[in-house]
């Protein structure tokens, strides 16, 4: 009975942080995957078998970098079963092939769409008060769920193998992501209001004028939805403001 030692697993786990080092347009994270599972394969296979195993892992692969943790944890478990002659319901390659896209979607929605903007919003509150805590707040809020997912995703993936999928279904992360985004939108509204009122007070403009910012933001949203780029919108508004000030002065 071949078993992957804890030390090998730890080695693989740390290699996960370099998964995307050779990201390429042709097969995306494929060499990265081989790099992560290589220590495990070296324990499980010898010579010709090892070479074939390596070859198998060079096929097209791409998922969210954090969610690669549960996928590859399960992959390691499946490889171990395979090396011991136990074939489960899924081959290693089938599992990788079918799980990469859904896991990527979940990771994109949860981390890029949910946690990251939320953490950024909170950090900007700190930054607007010139507090150097801002980057720390951001890093802490973002990296707690991130590192938790990496670590426990890998451990659970290894322990449960294919049934890691049930875990994903139970957490309903896409729905959690929607909640996070809603919270973020509310915070963003507060942040914008706080900054607009701040500038109004500083420039001695009566506070009710702050409401004017709202239709302006809505107009910007409308234009952005039509495909106008951030850079274009920003420069247009800035030119308008400068012109307005010059006209008023003149």
């Amino acid at each position, binding site marked *: 009975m071949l078993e992957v030692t804890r030390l090998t697993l730890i080695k693989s786990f740390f290699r996960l942080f370099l998964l995307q080092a050779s990201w390429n*347009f*042709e*097969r*995306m994270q494929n060499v990265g995957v081989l790099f992560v599972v290589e220590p495990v394969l070296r324990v499980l296979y010898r010579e010709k078998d090892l070479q074939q195993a390596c070859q198998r892992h060079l096929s*097209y692969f*791409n998922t*969210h970098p954090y969610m690669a943790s549960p996928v590859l944890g399960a992959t390691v478990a499946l490889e171990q079963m395979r090396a011991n002659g136990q074939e489960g319901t*899924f081959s290693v390659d089938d599992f990788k092939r*079918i*799980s*990469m*896209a*859904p*896991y*990527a*979607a*979940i*990771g*994109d*929605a949860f981390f*890029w*769409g949910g946690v990251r903007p939320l953490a950024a919003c909170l950090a900007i509150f700190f930054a607007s008060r010139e507090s150097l805590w801002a980057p720390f707040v951001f890093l802490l809020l973002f990296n707690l769920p991130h590192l938790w997912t990496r670590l426990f995703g890998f451990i659970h993936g290894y322990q449960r193998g*294919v049934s890691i*999928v049930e875990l*994903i*279904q139970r957490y*309903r992360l*896409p*729905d959690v*992501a*929607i909640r996070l985004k809603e919270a973020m939108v509310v915070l963003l509204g507060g942040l914008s209001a706080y900054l607009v009122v701040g500038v109004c007070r500083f420039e001695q403009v009566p506070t009710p004028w702050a409401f004017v910012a709202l239709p302006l933001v809505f107009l910007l949203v409308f234009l952005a*939805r039509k*495909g106008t*780029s951030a850079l274009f919108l920003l420069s247009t508004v800035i030119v308008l403001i400068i012109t307005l000030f010059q006209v008023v002065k003149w």
Partner: protein
Amino acid sequence: MQIVLARIDNRLIHGQVLESWVPSLKANCIVVANDEVAHAVMQKLLMEAAVPRGIQVIVDTVDAVSELLCSDELGDARVLLLFATAHDARRAVESGLVLKKLNLGNMHAGSGKLQCSCTIFLDNDDVVDLEKIQACGVSVTSQCVPSERETKWSKMVMKRV
């Protein structure tokens, strides 16, 4: 029912579709037309787990999907239709599905495939399929995410040669 986007994407449901296309087009129904996935229980489950509630997911064979979309069954849904390969898209179009536009998202590398843009790799069969689709009056363009520029398919094929 309205098909807001028909797309060839070998990754089917993934981040680009859910995080970029769905919000920008306000789609509320994702239809996956793929013979293989239609019979793979686990893959179907995983796909459904990746989509938030409030967005309907339909996974079925290419023939069943084109039949469904030609009928009036989906009411006033805004459909985002996904194919895995050019061949599947051609089959759907030839079986009577009316599309105005076909978007090429990801068509990944394989042996004998040549790179046409960052994420699109085509072999001769793909080119034939896409030409047939275009001959049916469908405009074929490539665009990964809405914020990227749209490229005409004819321009990409020129690049390939």
